[in-house]
């Protein structure tokens, strides 16, 4: 029902008839936090609308009242010093009105804040998200180290399970923001922040770094898949497996290049010699929805483009343009696509 209200708020856009997706908007109502947010937001909107109506009403009344009568250009002598007594009472009333209105809003905000804080009190799932220029390094915590899942730029969350996300930064300040799921929280070098949320709707949501973090700030996105618990477990177990061995000669060639040449200095692929820690983990690259932190959707074409010349697609990022020969390129892309 909140969703409908959200839709109402964005009605002008719907009317304008642009095809319209809510997967990065705050109206999704996809988590407890955003649900509370929407309620609070509507309360504020109503109170503010009333205040605004009062001001504009007063303005119009004041204008029409005197603009008709009398010659416009005479300076009124004499009584222009005493101010209208009715207005003095009005002033007091106005102050009281504004005061109470704000008080009400402050209280509402306080309770809203508290209910959000309590929403995910007992977390079931804990995830580390580390911000780097310009991608997200993600680790699913687990008591035993062998059950830790490392991935990048894509979160998978089970629906209705409170999740606790621990936020760190390796370089500059970033901000973790998935509008449809929660408010934002900064990732600050030298500080530990965290955010909790309870996803309520299965779906795919897009988030984006919300604190200016340098050249590619605009291309530092994060995809969040909220799955049923079963699907989540399936995904999680799959993530624990290491990469499949190459089968065809082409993928073999790609495998050789990736594990022995430049790629392996930065990227890790579980079960292979490639163990770089500088860039995103590639073990299950092909199973992700996007390339380069949401810079472009995952597809063979985009993968070709990205591997061939990352600098032109995401200028300034740390992945160098290696300048692969065409056959090397075919092989590498072919191999990467096997990393499902």
């Amino acid at each position, binding site marked *: 029902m909140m969703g409908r209200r959200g839709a109402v708020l*964005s009605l002008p*856009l719907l009317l304008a008839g642009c095809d*319209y997706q*809510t*997967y*990065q908007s705050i109206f999704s109502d996809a988590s407890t936090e955003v649900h509370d947010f929407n309620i*609070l937001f509507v309360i*504020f909107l109503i109170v*503010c609308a009333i*205040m*605004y109506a009062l*001001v*504009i009403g*007063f303005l119009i*009344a*004041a204008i029409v*009242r*005197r*603009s008709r009568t009398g010659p*416009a*250009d005479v*300076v*009124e002598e004499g009584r*222009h*010093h005493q*101010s*209208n007594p009715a*207005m003095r009472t*009005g*002033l007091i009333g106005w*102050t009281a009105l*504004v*005061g109470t209105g*704000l008080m009400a*809003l*402050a209280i*509402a905000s306080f309770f*809203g*804040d508290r209910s959000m804080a309590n929403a995910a009190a007992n977390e079931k799932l804990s995830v580390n998200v580390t911000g780097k220029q310009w991608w997200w390094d993600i680790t699913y915590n687990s008591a035993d180290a062998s059950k830790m899942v490392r991935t990048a730029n894509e979160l998978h969350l089970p629906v209705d399970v409170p999740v606790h996300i621990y936020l760190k930064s390796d370089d500059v*300040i970033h*901000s973790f923001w998935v*509008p*449809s799921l929660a*408010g*934002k929280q*900064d990732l*600050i*070098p030298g500080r530990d*922040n965290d955010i909790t949320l309870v996803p309520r709707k299965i779906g795919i949501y897009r988030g*984006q770094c*919300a*604190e*200016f*973090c*340098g*050249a*590619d700030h*605009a291309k530092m996105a994060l995809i969040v898949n909220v799955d049923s618990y079963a699907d989540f477990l399936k995904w999680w177990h799959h993530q624990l497996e290491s990469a499949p061995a190459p089968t065809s000669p082409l993928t073999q060639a790609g495998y050789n290049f990736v594990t022995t040449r430049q790629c392996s200095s930065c990227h890790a692929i579980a079960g292979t010699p490639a163990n770089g820690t500088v860039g995103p983990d590639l073990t299950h690259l092909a199973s992700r929805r996007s390339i380069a932190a949401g810079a472009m959707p995952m597809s063979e074409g985009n993968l070709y483009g990205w591997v061939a010349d990352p600098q032109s697609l995401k*200028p*300034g990022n740390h992945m160098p343009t290696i300048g692969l020969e065409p056959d090397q390129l075919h092989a590498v892309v072919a191999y990467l696509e096997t990393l499902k």
Partner: protein
Amino acid sequence: MTPPDSIPQRIRAQDERLARERGTIARDGPDLRGAELEARLDRTWRRTPGIIGWLATVDHKEIGRRYIITALIFLALGGVLALAMRVQLARPDSALISPQRYNELFTMHGSTMMFLFAVPVMEGVAVYIIPLMVGTRSTTFPRLNAFSYFMYLFGGVMLWVAFLLNIGPDVGWFAYTPLSGPEFSPGKRADVWAQMITFTEVSALAAAVVLICTILKARAPGMTLARMPLFAWAMLVQAVMIVFAMPAVALCSSMLISDRLVGTNFYNAAEHGDALLWQHLFWFFGHPEVYIIFIPATGFVSVITETFCRRPVFAHAVVVLALISTGILAFGLWVHHMFATGLPRVGYSFYTSASMTVAIPTGLQIFCWLATIWDGRPRFQVPMLYVVAFIITFVIGGLTGVIIAAVPLDLELHDTYFIVAHFHYVLIGGAVFPLLGILTYWYPKITGRMMSETLGKISFWMVFLGFQLAFFPMHFSGLLGMPRRVYTYPAGLGLELPNLLSTIGAFIVALAVVIFVVNGIVSLYRGMIAPPNPWGAATLEWATTSPPPPYNFAHIPVVESNTPLWDVDGEMPVVTGLRVDEKETLLTTVVAAVPDLREPIPEASLWPFIASVAVGIVFVASIFSPWALAFGVVPCAIAIAAWFWPKEMKRHPEPVIS
């Protein structure tokens, strides 16, 4: 009081001679008045022609004019950057502008508008008008005033030259560490930004001191604090705020530049520093900054409302108190820019309520203006139209401000286009609209001609409607999840339409501003000659010719009410006895404005300019080597000493600052 023996014979002889000469000094009064007085005053106060005279002048009217024109030029430049950004954002995944360039664009846009347009233009208007409004012949410390202008000019020019030479800053106008620190901003871009801050902050502080002293000490006799015009009050509050706020940004940018140049560790988390220290210091300045821009604008609104409604603003005292309390509260809110940084939650609710409290004094002022309109008989000429537009627009900005003061809401809306919409409603609706109104209003005072009413109305409607079209959709862009400071956005998020509308609106506003400027330039030559008091205003700046003579007033007026020009019946009470052959003005007591001292006004001097050049070179050079500061002390010290050193060593019957 003086032990007579301690005074040598020679000096005593001098004293007696000077005492005799003192009797012969020409002073204004019943027997020296009218044309002859004006001719002699003009000879004393007129500046020498030529480039030297231009650089040396200390006439507050010339300096104020320069401030205003320079600030408007920077407004145009900043606007061009805004258009470039809007073009880039008009379509999703657009690649017209590279990310690096776009980052430079919004950094330059923010820095230019904040530091090189908004604050200086307010100070410029005040530097021009305040002495006239409070009925004195010059600002206090006129040489400091000239110095502050040149510092401001050089700072702005340095920033823009750097931008054109492709070493312009790219770290945002807020330059958060560590992104702006030595490791993540290699090169000189961030240093240029930090030094630009130093320039503008020196200039703003100097101008603030000048204004405070002028308002407190140089008011016409009888203009008690209770009778002081609201614009003077607004400028007083603003200047005091500058005095307390600007040091914060100066300090944190100096820390940043020393981190970058000599390897200090203020913001280095690994060495016990803290990145958030920057944000605290910066926003301790940055939030009051908004009110430093807004409060003078409320002064403009009061001036226009009073004149065009033929009523003193309702509840003068309440408005004054509202101004003061806004000024104080503004320093208690900076944390609401940092809700997302994970500070202790308990503190948050305090800052939420504090941020909301600011709405009360502002609400009071709004009410007082509306009550004035209600009581009076409004005439809707261009300036008054801008006041109406101000109320309609600014209140929206204020209310969205209340929305984002709430922590849970701010966590979603912070750093999105919702915020961009909010502060443009506050700053353009709240400050630029009144500014355009007041420029139209005081244009005849400054130029002696009226601006064209027709063109004025055309540009008013375009700027008003264009603004709404440009910025209202941004609320939706934000709610649909568009963060700030992104050089592009993907298709399919519903962001296409609002951004396209914003771009169209931006161009309409730009066109409107062009029309406004054309109107200003054409009216300079074609405009109707302005009568001395074209709008029938009540304040003293209209009690002299337009444009005012270099000495402002032939005789210093005496004030007997809040609205002097409405209450004098044909005859203006004045005091007499100021010198005619040397520059002199009258100082009064701070509260009751009783005549207190006769203050000699400094002659024009080239030294403030030379000093500003010396200081400027040091600042720029220190970007490249910290040693510049050590070596630069010498020329700066010489220039400043020469500035204060009397040019002729003979004693005068009464002090002369040559």
